[in-house]
């Protein structure tokens, strides 16, 4: 069966050009770049070039501001723990309630270590209120860590603007952003619109490089202790033998993303928009989460009220469609997605949320296939639902009140 892959915010297919660029470093040029002999010169030079290329494509920053890591989670851990350890006089951190666990759980750990963390709320559309941010800034604020775009909804935060406010308030505040979902999807310019950002984390596998390679931009002069201690690699800021092939792959993937961005972006957004139009027209009581906010063009987070996401994904999978959900049954815990809860999405909708995320490898036919399958999937589950009236194709009268987040009867 043909697979329609619409889960590109989870991971992406590795571009053939990337595989090709990586190949020599597994086969003939496998040497440790730290070795002295001539043969090791190739890998060392390849890393140098990759670093320069990435620096150039993030807005012309300096090569020595680019650190290679194993994943975005490591980059985020490095940035946050590193900043905290380097600045013991300050004890306050600002973040948001919709961050990835790689940031949220690090912040929770900081609380255990005695720091204070302000977690900013978002509104029903997933937006931050800048006034909340301003109010949260304190004299002892050490770090601001706010994601660039949300992985579940695609909502983009005004990180450049928030960074400017933080720096004008107090240049000592360190600003970090988790840009895992935006590098390769948005133009990242650390010399202009993001010039007040000190650290920026991302990984390779969201932009058609393989899993297992990440990157951290660290602006010169940022006070940050190393996280992974070891050899002198990465100028002592991250120990461990460089993952040469993957670093080369990451650089190649970013080059491709930047080169094709202008052509791909309108095509991807058009697919997403058509998907949303067609599905909301065909399925009653469906809403798009984050539609009222600036969003990434590739991401669609839909909620179909009164059905449960796991059953949706199972049927989509049976039809060859790969997507994800914020429902409790798919989260590994028994809670719905913290992002949708943070937005105040009623649980009638949170359980029935599905995320489709596209890449440049998706085709128009993919949207056609989803549109031909998805409405019947929802209808089949609603027929089974005790909250749905099949005659009117509406919620039962007693369930209507739940649409606005009212409690669903007495939970036992």
């Amino acid at each position, binding site marked *: 069966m043909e697979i329609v892959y619409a889960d590109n915010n989870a991971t992406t297919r590795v571009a053939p050009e990337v595989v090709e660029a990586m190949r020599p470093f597994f086969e003939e040029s496998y040497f440790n770049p730290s070795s002295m002999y001539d043969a090791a010169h190739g890998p060392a030079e390849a890393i140098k070039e990759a670093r320069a290329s990435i620096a150039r494509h993030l807005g012309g920053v300096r090569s020595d501001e680019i650190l290679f890591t194993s994943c975005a989670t490591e980059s985020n851990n490095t940035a946050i723990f590193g900043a905290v350890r380097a600045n013991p006089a300050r004890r306050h951190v600002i973040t948001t309630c919709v961050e990835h666990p790689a940031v949220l759980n690090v912040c929770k750990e900081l609380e255990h270590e005695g720091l204070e963390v302000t977690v900013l709320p978002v509104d029903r559309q997933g937006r931050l209120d800048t006034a909340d941010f301003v109010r949260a*800034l304190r004299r002892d604020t050490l770090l601001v860590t706010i994601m660039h775009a949300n992985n579940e909804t695609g909502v983009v935060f005004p990180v450049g603007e928030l960074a400017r406010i933080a720096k004008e308030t107090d240049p000592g505040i360190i600003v970090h952003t988790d840009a895992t979902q935006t590098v390769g999807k948005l133009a990242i310019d650390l010399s202009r619109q993001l010039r007040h950002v000190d650290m920026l984390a991302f990984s390779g596998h969201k932009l058609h490089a393989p899993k297992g390679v990440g990157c951290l931009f660290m602006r010169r002069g940022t006070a940050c202790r190393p996280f992974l201690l070891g050899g002198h690699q990465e100028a002592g800021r991250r120990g461990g033998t460089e993952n040469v092939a993957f670093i080369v792959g990451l650089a190649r993937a970013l080059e491709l993303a930047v080169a094709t961005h202008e052509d791909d972006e309108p095509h991807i957004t058009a697919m997403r928009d058509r998907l949303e139009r067609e599905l909301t027209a065909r399925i009653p009581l469906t809403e798009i989460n984050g539609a009222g906010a600036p969003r990434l063009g590739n991401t669609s987070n839909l909620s179909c009220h009164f059905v*449960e996401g796991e*059953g949706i994904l199972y049927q989509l999978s049976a039809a060859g469609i790969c997507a994800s959900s914020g429902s409790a049954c798919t989260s590994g815990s028994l*809670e719905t997605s913290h992002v949708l809860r943070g937005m105040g999405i009623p649980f009638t909708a949170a359980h029935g949320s599905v995320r489709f995320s596209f890449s440049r490898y998706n085709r128009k036919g993919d949207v056609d296939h989803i549109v031909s399958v998805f409405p019947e999937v929802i209808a*089949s589950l609603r*027929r089974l639902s005790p909250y749905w009236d099949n005659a009117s194709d509406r919620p039962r009268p007693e369930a209507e009140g739940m649409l606005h987040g009212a409690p669903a009867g007495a939970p036992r």
Partner: protein
Amino acid sequence: MTWEYSEKTKQLFMDAVHGVAGTHMGEIADPDGFGEHGSIACGDALRFTFRCERHPSDPLQDRIVEARYLTFGCTSAIAASEALCTIIEAGHFSPVQALKVSNQDIVDFLEGLPEAKIHCSVMGAEALEAAVFNWAQKRGVDLKALGLDMTSAEQEEGRLVCKCFGVTEPYLRRKIKELELHSIPEITNAIKAGGACMSCHHAPGGLQDILNDIWGRHPTTLVPLPSMPEGHRDATATGSELSPYQFAKQVERVLSEDVRPRLQDDGGNLEIIDIKEMTVYCRLSGACANCAGATGTMKLLVERILKERVDERIRVIAV
């Protein structure tokens, strides 16, 4: 995390959503037994109904001939509902006999369920129990007299242990014994309690305490951990933790509540000119402005009240 369902579970789910003949989706009008379990807030809910062939004189000889469900929930919740109805119909049980159908029977029928999905089978057994309870009420059958210790869910009110899923202590205690649950993960897998915020796990009177009490284990003595820092301290205690804006608002509020009324009694008033760190610059106006005791008023009244109510480091300077 991909699906780890048995072929049987997958088949029942797909048959159900496609409305294949012989499946049991639906709701019986005027049922002899009606039972519900779960809620949409918790992520799954089951409405189970059955119809009996009524015995003309002895309700205990009623036979269940039809069973239907409506389920909001995941793949395994829907498959478990199918399984429940199939088992009940195939057994030609009387409602009292049907009570013997346990969640384990549902699991066996499904050829196994992943650990984390056991609660789907428990939901089936609970809805069945509730429906039999409902039948007994309608038919005037005294289940207690039959030696069945049945309590409807509504009657099991008590201290809420798991707030996320609304699970009370009496219900927990009954289920821990009935399903022989020996650990917190087993409780969560079976009845979801403790599966969300997890704060009830080791809280006093929480899941572990109840487990220890039931299975007679003694709590391990743990070294007390350092207490967590307070996220938001009482605003009146330490003004320095407030942003300047919040601090100013707090000062303004205290002045309005406690200071101005006293001055106004004397025909005066007070105005804040500025606040810099802990220094509040104030001006007395009205009758108080020219009062000989103005400076004394500032120190004795305004500063004292602000020190008490906002922050003891506050200085008040008369302007």
